């Protein structure tokens, strides 16, 4: 299938296939033994990470993309290859996915300690890593789509991990169906592409020079670009399909960190940036991306401002940051979008994992309560979460500052209105994220010392006291690692840009934008300080004075209600009901009526049967005689 087995190919296979092997192993053999499953999972992820690292370093200076490809399905003129495509973009993404997968598996040792379903959890994590890695290094859009769907499946399974909670399984279903709705557009889009150009090679659609040579008319190009983007809208929780992501927080927190902030939801952004030249060829499509990104960013920022659940805040901020990335891409700033994707992956994972530590410890999701229970005493998580928030808000020198600033520059290039939207978003982001931080650092009212403080975490450990340090440090070490990455990543902007685009451009943004962006962020921080941080602050946002707006924001702009109504009235009440009745009454009723008619007809005819033998004989001979006469006489 794959031609020639070189060492690089072997490493690629290891990187992409080790997790699925682990998935199989855990599901089939080690389901009953939690420790074995954990070991298998972590070894698999480590192998995969190691191979990815090797590939990353090996191809770091490669002149052009390296492709390994073999036929997966051949049907007439339809050829669907399976293979690997290594170019800077996919290598970077591979590195992000492999790294975060690995650290989250390590983190989960502690977080999931004592959960009886841990084996299943690790299996699903492996399944996810497998699909995500193959998605990232897919050489064709169809392979990308296939693993895209598989990522959706693993997301479904992981969100519904606590399946005994209705809300969790509902959330899983919702996530799957809503992303599927987007995927249908994606699917139709790639079918259109395949039918018109005959292939789906990323090497072509991801290459500015060749996109023009595909023979695609501008209208079809725009149409398929928008359709494919609808897949990204679903997966990255953009404007019309964004309500599944906050619900997806029903899953275990590391899952939220891995799937619903760092990697899976970023797949939409990855998809658009992957075939960026293809999008760039259609200004309409770019505009759609930009508009959707902007709407999403503003909308979800407002939602984040009222949430009291720490995971909800991070979820809304994820949506808004993804929207921000789309804005960057839509504005034509390819590198800025990808760069923000990279930095976001790490600091958002960090934020979620910190939240996980708190949730694990205090057994509540409400950060006001955490604060009251003494969250400030947990130094390492508090410091790292502050780093993460600073990065999120775009405070220098943390990584988010650099990437946000790059996007702002791109937006300014596109037009002032987009820049203003971006700045507004940045201010809101700073406001809501520092709101969390200030509340947690500076608890107001009487502070009740939480009963089981640090020891609480220890008791949850399945190994008891001897293994407690593993539980704790598996989580804390990961926080430190991610915090460190968040700190330093911003300084590698030049190198990354060179790596990705082949040239490191001059500093795009003007000083003015830099100042503006920083100013907006600081304004948000200061507002948050006066409302939540300062000595005599009431810890009530300015929104609480505008009840109707607050209600609108905290009900997510009533989008869920609208979907619910749509589902209830149109799908269940309307179509389903009509069809079911049609089945029962018209089709079945018709058939049953036909049967009843036949039976009654039979009854009627059977009256002729008198049961008199001679009568029957008489009729027989009468007919014979008449027939005989007829034939003889005529």
């Amino acid at each position, binding site marked *: 299938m794959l031609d020639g087995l070189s060492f690089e190919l072997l490493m690629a296979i290891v990187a992409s296939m080790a997790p699925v092997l682990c998935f199989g192993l855990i599901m089939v053999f080690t389901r009953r033994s939690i420790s074995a499953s954990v070991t298998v999972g972590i070894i698999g992820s480590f192998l995969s990470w190691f191979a990815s690292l090797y590939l990353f370093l090996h191809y770091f200076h490669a002149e052009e993309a390296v492709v390994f490809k073999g036929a997966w399905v051949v049907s*007439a003129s*339809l050829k669907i290859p399976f293979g690997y495509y290594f170019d800077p973009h996919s290598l970077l993404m591979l590195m992000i996915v492999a790294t975060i997968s690995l650290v989250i598996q390590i983190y989960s040792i502690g977080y999931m300690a004592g959960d009886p379903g841990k084996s299943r959890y690790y299996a699903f994590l492996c399944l996810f890593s497998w699909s995500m890695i193959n998605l990232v290094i897919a050489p064709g859009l169809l392979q990308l789509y296939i693993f895209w769907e598989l990522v959706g499946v693993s997301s479904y399974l992981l969100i519904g991990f606590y*399946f005994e909670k209705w809300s969790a399984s509902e959330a899983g279903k919702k996530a799957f169906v809503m992303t599927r709705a987007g995927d249908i557009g994606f*699917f139709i889009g790639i079918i*259109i592409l395949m*039918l018109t150009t005959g292939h789906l090679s990323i090497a072509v659609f991801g290459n500015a020079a060749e996109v023009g040579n595909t023979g695609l008319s501008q209208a079809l190009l725009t149409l398929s670009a928008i359709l494919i983007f609808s897949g990204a809208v679903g997966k990255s929780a953009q404007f019309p399909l964004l309500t599944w992501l906050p619900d997806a927080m029903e899953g275990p927190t590391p899952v939220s960190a891995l799937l619903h902030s760092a990697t899976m939801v970023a797949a939409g952004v990855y998809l658009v940036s992957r075939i960026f030249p293809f999008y760039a060829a259609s200004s309409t499509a770019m505009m759609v991306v930009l508009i959707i990104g902007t709407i999403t960013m503003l909308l979800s920022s407002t939602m984040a401002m009222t949430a009291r659940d720490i995971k909800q805040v991070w979820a809304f901020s994820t949506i808004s940051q993804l929207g921000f990335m789309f804005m960057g891409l839509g504005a034509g700033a390819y590198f800025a979008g990808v760069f923000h994707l990279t930095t976001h992956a790490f600091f958002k994972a960090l934020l979620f994992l910190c939240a996980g530590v708190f949730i694990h410890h205090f057994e509540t999701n409400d950060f006001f309560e955490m604060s009251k229970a003494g969250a400030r005493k947990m130094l390492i998580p508090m410091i790292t979460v502050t780093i993460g928030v600073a990065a999120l808000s775009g405070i220098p020198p943390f990584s988010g500052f650099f990437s946000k600033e790059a996007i702002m520059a791109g937006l300014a290039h596109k037009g002032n209105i987009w820049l203003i939207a971006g700045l507004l978003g940045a201010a809101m982001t700073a406001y809501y994220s520092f709101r969390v931080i200030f509340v947690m650092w500076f608890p107001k009212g009487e502070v009740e010392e939480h009963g089981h403080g640090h020891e609480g975490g220890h008791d949850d450990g399945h190994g008891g006291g001897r293994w407690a340090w593993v539980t704790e440090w598996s989580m804390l070490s990961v926080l430190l690692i991610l915090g460190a990455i968040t700190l330093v990543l911003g300084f590698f902007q030049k190198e990354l840009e060179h790596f990705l685009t082949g040239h490191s451009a001059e500093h795009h943004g003007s000083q003015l934008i830099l100042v503006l962006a920083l100013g907006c962020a600081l304004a948000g921080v200061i507002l948050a300080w006066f409302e939540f941080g300062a000595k005599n602050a009431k810890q009530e946002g300015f929104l609480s004075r505008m009840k109707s707006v607050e209600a609108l924001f905290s009900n997510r702009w009533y989008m869920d209600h609208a979907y619910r109504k749509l589902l209830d009235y149109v799908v269940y009440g309307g*179509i389903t009901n009509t069809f079911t009745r049609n089945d029962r009454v018209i089709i079945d009723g018709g*058939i049953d009526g036909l049967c009843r008619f036949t039976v009654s007809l039979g009854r009627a005819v059977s009256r002729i049967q008198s049961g008199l033998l001679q009568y029957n004989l008489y009729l027989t001979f009468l007919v014979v005689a008449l027939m005989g006469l007829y034939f003889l006489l005529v």
Partner: protein
Amino acid sequence: MADFYEIVRQWPLLSGIQVVTALGLLVIMFIPEDRPEVIKKVAAVFSGLDLIICILLFLAYDKEIGGLQFVEKFLWVKTLGIHYFNAVDGINLPMLLLTGIVLFTGCLTMWQLENRVKEYFAFSFLLVLGVFGVFMSFDLFFLFVYYDIALFPMYPLIAIWGSTRKEYGAMKLTLYLLAGSALILPGIILLYIKSGLWTFDLIALSGAQFTPYIQSIGFLLFYFGFGVLAGVWPFHTWSPVGHVAAPTSVSMIHAGVLMKLGAYGVLRVGAFLCPEGWVQWADLMAVLAVVGIVYGAFVGLAQTDLKYVIGYSSVSHMGIVGLGLSTVTVSGLNGAVFQMFAHGIMTALLFSSVGYIYDKTHTKTTFELGGMSRNMPIISGFFILAAMAGVGVPALASFWAELLVFISAVKVFPIRGILAICGLLVSALFMLRVVMKTFYGPANPKFAGLPDVNFWLASPRIILAGVIVLFGLFPWLMLNLIQVSTQSFPKVMGF
């Protein structure tokens, strides 16, 4: 290994299948009724032998040469031109393999049957004898006779061992299918007479130059005649009712194999003999298929009985087969045949899982179950896997089939193709809804102590799940085989 296959190709394996099945039937009939264990073992052994032969066929078929292989042909009735003509090609080989797998796993699934074991397995073997016969015969006469043999045992099987309105279900099913077969017979006679060749040999008949008018009528007869069995909308209502009423392994064989008999008949007899009619009626076929896909999914959304849900999902999935057939393209046919195989395995797994749950809890309505993943994690896992396959998740067999069908459908009938793709969303919704209601949520304490499947009871489900995953990950194993024959089909477009 190649040498071994070379030798195997000389063996009359197709007759071998029939002999083994018939022998199984005979042996079962001669075992005293009071020894059900022996009967079950014998059934398992003979169905296992069938499966082994099918696998052997699958492996030994030479894809390089293609065409008809393992041909067994001799003249049976000279004056009428009836031949004993068995052969395999890329279209019926997957079907034979499917039948083998479903029969074997079905026999294992019914290990806990207690009521009239002997008759049950005897009827099952008779049924499968007919099914195998239809799939391997290349003579219209034998095909039709086997077809009716396959239909008949359904009635007693459902009416005696069934549940929920079994008499009604059995009667409805039998009437529908016989009505279908009443259309097929005139079709066969029409072609037999009009060909002027005085032969029932399918290959010879395909060489006859039928006028477009005859082809058009002939195809319509075959399409509706066989289509009833394939659950073509609006002749689908027998299928959910029948599936619900039937006992587990009959549901498996029925939804898994028998419905494929219909689609296979449309392709093998209708499309092969009347290609012009096929092209002419493709539009209608596509419309009915798309309606079936969307309609089945929507009606499935309203069901609360697990088996009804699966029944309507079958209607929806068989619509995909119909859509593939209507495209008249190589890829469409590949997809359709692959979908027949994949759907067969998938539904068999669904029914097999539901059957176990029903055996233990004596209910199959979703609101009475709930949280089954806690009580019976393994069987729930199988169901969820199969449901995922039904939703069209990649890396499971049916995804590839749907992919090929949809690509060619969008090419040939853009609007209908896109509508059908949108149907996928609804099918995802209703499958997941059922999974959620049945397997997720708080566990019902009523079923807390019930045992999950042990290894032996899980084994048939393991086989089915393995097949789904195997062909999902390595679709070319099947597609390369199917392609051998679909390429040379008359009138198809080379896409």
